[in-house]
């Protein structure tokens, strides 16, 4: 409780990086107790068939907390385009929540009759890129809100990939003119599992497209780092956030927790730590060009 009060008492929060959290029913009460939040992200698929939004979310909206949508099943990296009826439902949900941003992952989740139930990496080939770009352009034509794409964590990687992950992500974003939802926990996980330098990865990304950042925890099992969203954020991921802030303006940062939900105090502590990293002045300030290129998302949130 103390931690959340510290955040609430600092009015400078509204002038800097926005702070958000992934809204889950299990922590709905704890979230409603956090006065520091600027936005919450909801999983669109969990709400698009509901007749009405849960009261807790409506309450947050009354408190001027922005709601943004996050999808997990549009499968932009799959062989088939997204279902139009699903897109209609998502558009309806966006209108209902007043969401001004929608995102999904650079992944696939189904092939023919098989559903993976998890985000799977796409083979990074020219052919897969063409299909993915076509799928995303199809999505963007039908969605009523701007679209962002998130990098995923994966244990498996395709040997037949022609591009490395950062190149692939950058190319998809450029070709589809999409925003970037950068998950630093996923980046950290892949850097361990596939052995690359996360800083080099960051340098290759079109950071002027950055909409917001996901932060989450994970754990090592044997040789692999598992992006569990059930543990506290490791220091290495905080360090990546600090590095990212040196490279560009970070419009918003969000905490993701999907399992082993912490107590209200623990949640406050974690949000407070995120807030501290976000408000600490970066050693190297971003260039004027980077500052000017702060995207619509930051401006939209600033208007509130």
């Amino acid at each position, binding site marked *: 409780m103390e931690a959340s009060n510290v955040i609430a008492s600092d009015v400078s929060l509204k002038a800097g990086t926005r702070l958000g959290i992934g809204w889950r029913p299990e922590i709905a009460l704890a979230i409603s107790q956090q006065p520091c939040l600027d936005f919450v992200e909801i999983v669109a698929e969990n709400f698009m068939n509901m007749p009405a939004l849960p009261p807790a979310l409506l*309450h947050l909206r009354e408190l001027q907390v922005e709601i943004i949508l996050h999808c997990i099943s549009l499968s932009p990296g799959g*062989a088939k385009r997204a279902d139009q009826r699903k897109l209609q439902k998502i558009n309806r949900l966006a209108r209902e929540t007043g969401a001004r941003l929608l995102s999904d992952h650079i992944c696939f989740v189904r*092939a023919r009759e098989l559903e993976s*139930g998890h985000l799977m990496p796409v*083979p990074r080939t020219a052919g897969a890129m*063409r299909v993915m770009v*076509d799928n995303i352009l199809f999505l963007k034509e039908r969605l009523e809100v701007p679209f962002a794409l998130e990098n995923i964590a994966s*244990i*498996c990687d395709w040997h037949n990939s022609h591009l490395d992950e950062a190149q692939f992500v950058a190319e998809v974003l450029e070709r589809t003119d999409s925003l970037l939802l950068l998950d630093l926990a996923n980046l950290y996980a892949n850097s361990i599992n596939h052995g690359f330098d996360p800083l080099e990865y960051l340098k290759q990304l079109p950071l002027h497209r950055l909409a917001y950042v996901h932060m989450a925890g994970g754990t090592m*099992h044997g040789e692999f780092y598992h992006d569990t969203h059930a543990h506290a954020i490791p220091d290495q991921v905080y360090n990546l956030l600090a590095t990212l802030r040196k490279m560009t303006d970070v419009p918003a940062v969000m905490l993701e927790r999907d399992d082993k939900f912490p107590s209200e105090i623990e949640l406050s502590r974690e949000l407070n730590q995120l807030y501290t990293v976000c408000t600490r002045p970066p050693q190297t300030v971003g260039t004027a060009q980077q500052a000017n290129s702060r995207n619509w998302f930051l401006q939209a949130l600033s208007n509130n």
Partner: protein
Amino acid sequence: MRVSLTMPARGAYKKEPPAHCSQMSLKPPARDRLIVMTPKDLLKVLCNLHKRIGWSNNDSLAQDRKELEEQEYEFLNCLLVGDEHPLSIDDVQLSVCSKSLYRKRFRAVERCMSKIARLSGANFERWFSRFAQENPSVHPDGPCGDAHQFYKFLLANGQIPHSYIIQGYCWLARQLCYRLRCLFER
């Protein structure tokens, strides 16, 4: 589809023009090496060429989709059903990923099931293992759909969750408390 740019052989058009020429309303050339076309004809040829290139791109995209589907299906089949693994993926990575997916699915279903009915741990897992073998694909509606599918599987196998009613009421009571709290806090 390939477009040949070679010149017609001598005397090739003497009998009758080829089919594609008649489709484009191209008259046979008056002389062998000189093709006489009006601007209108030229426009038609260009339009036709453009269309052909467009079809060619669509064909290519369709081919890309087919190949991608094949690769991704093979990958999922290996992860979920346990088929022979594709050469383009590392064996160890696949094995770890497959176990991880199974555990994730189990946890997700367990969480959803706990809202309806919780079985004893060991029993639940044994039946879930059988269920996953018979239903390798996760339900398209996500964890709740999967949980519902599993629940039906348990019913079909005579494994009716004994604590269904109690757990159900507990869940309802919890929801009611939560809603009341929200209401009073407004």
